[in-house]
């Protein structure tokens, strides 16, 4: 693996302006690759929701997800990206735990949330590869918006599902925490 690749783990996000290549491995998680074609600023997150998000009533998973998306958008804007020019590609949301029905699976709800969010924010979804049962390895070139996607059969990459299940506990605890308040 090339050392210039920056790996994005569950719950992380990163914005870049020098053409860095962002890399992530996804099972049921979803990565949003956001890109402003004019400034060449791009960024990626890696989202695992703590539950099914209700974007009409803003329950805890929805608030957690909105914050994950907004944090990435704000990082890009701080570097000089224009929110109105940002386009998105999304990947992941696979069904990695066969004992749960697809309808209620984590993959489905993670992907659904990101799609709904982008629609609400009028951010064009220019490409996506979501669902199915394969694990995906994504390489995202942050200054051109290009994505290289490698599919991995689930039986060859069991640890992804295990990692995600483990991360879910941490994410749930993290989502319970609110930001700090300061009065001047």
């Amino acid at each position, binding site marked *: 693996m090339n050392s210039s690749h920056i790996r994005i783990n569950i719950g992380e996000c990163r914005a870049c302006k020098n053409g860095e290549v962002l890399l992530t491995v996804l099972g049921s998680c979803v990565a949003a690759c956001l890109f402003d074609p004019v400034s060449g600023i791009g960024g990626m997150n890696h989202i695992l929701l703590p539950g099914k998000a209700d974007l009409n009533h803003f329950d805890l998973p929805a608030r957690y997800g*909105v914050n994950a998306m907004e944090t990435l958008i704000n990082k890009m804007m701080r570097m000089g990206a224009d929110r109105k020019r940002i386009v998105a590609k999304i990947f992941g949301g696979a069904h990695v735990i066969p004992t749960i029905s697809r309808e209620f699976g984590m993959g489905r709800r993670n992907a659904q949330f990101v799609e709904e969010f982008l629609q*609400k924010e009028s951010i064009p979804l220019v490409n996506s590869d979501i669902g199915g049962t394969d694990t995906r390895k994504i390489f995202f070139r942050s200054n051109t918006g290009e994505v290289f996607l490698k599919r991995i059969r689930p039986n060859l990459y069991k640890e992804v599902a295990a990692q995600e299940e483990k991360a879910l506990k941490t994410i749930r605890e993290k989502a319970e925490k609110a*930001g700090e308040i300061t009065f001047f």
Partner: protein
Amino acid sequence: MAKSIMTVDDSASIRQMVSFTLENAGFSVLEAVDGEDALEKLNKNAVNMLFVDLNMPKMDGIELIRRVRANPQYKFVPIIMLTTESQASKKQAGKEAGATGWIVKPFKPEQLLNVIRKVLRE
């Protein structure tokens, strides 16, 4: 009459989230998409309090607070920054511009209402 609160944020989701929380608590809410939009709406409508995001196109939160504070009508109106930023230098800039307080996102609905109760003395 219900007190009126303005939410200024370039994110539609955040605006809806704030509006949903405040309207459920009985406040009337005015939404603005950036600093310029906020100033325009403040010229036509009086509000009792503002929640302001930091990074926004056209006019950011710090500049908006400076402009709002320059208007005698809004010299003492509570203005709370609601942002993903938590660096001390940004907070200092917010304080100097005239912000009343600073909330780091993500927020919990009850947190927002507690802040309102505190600054509006409800």
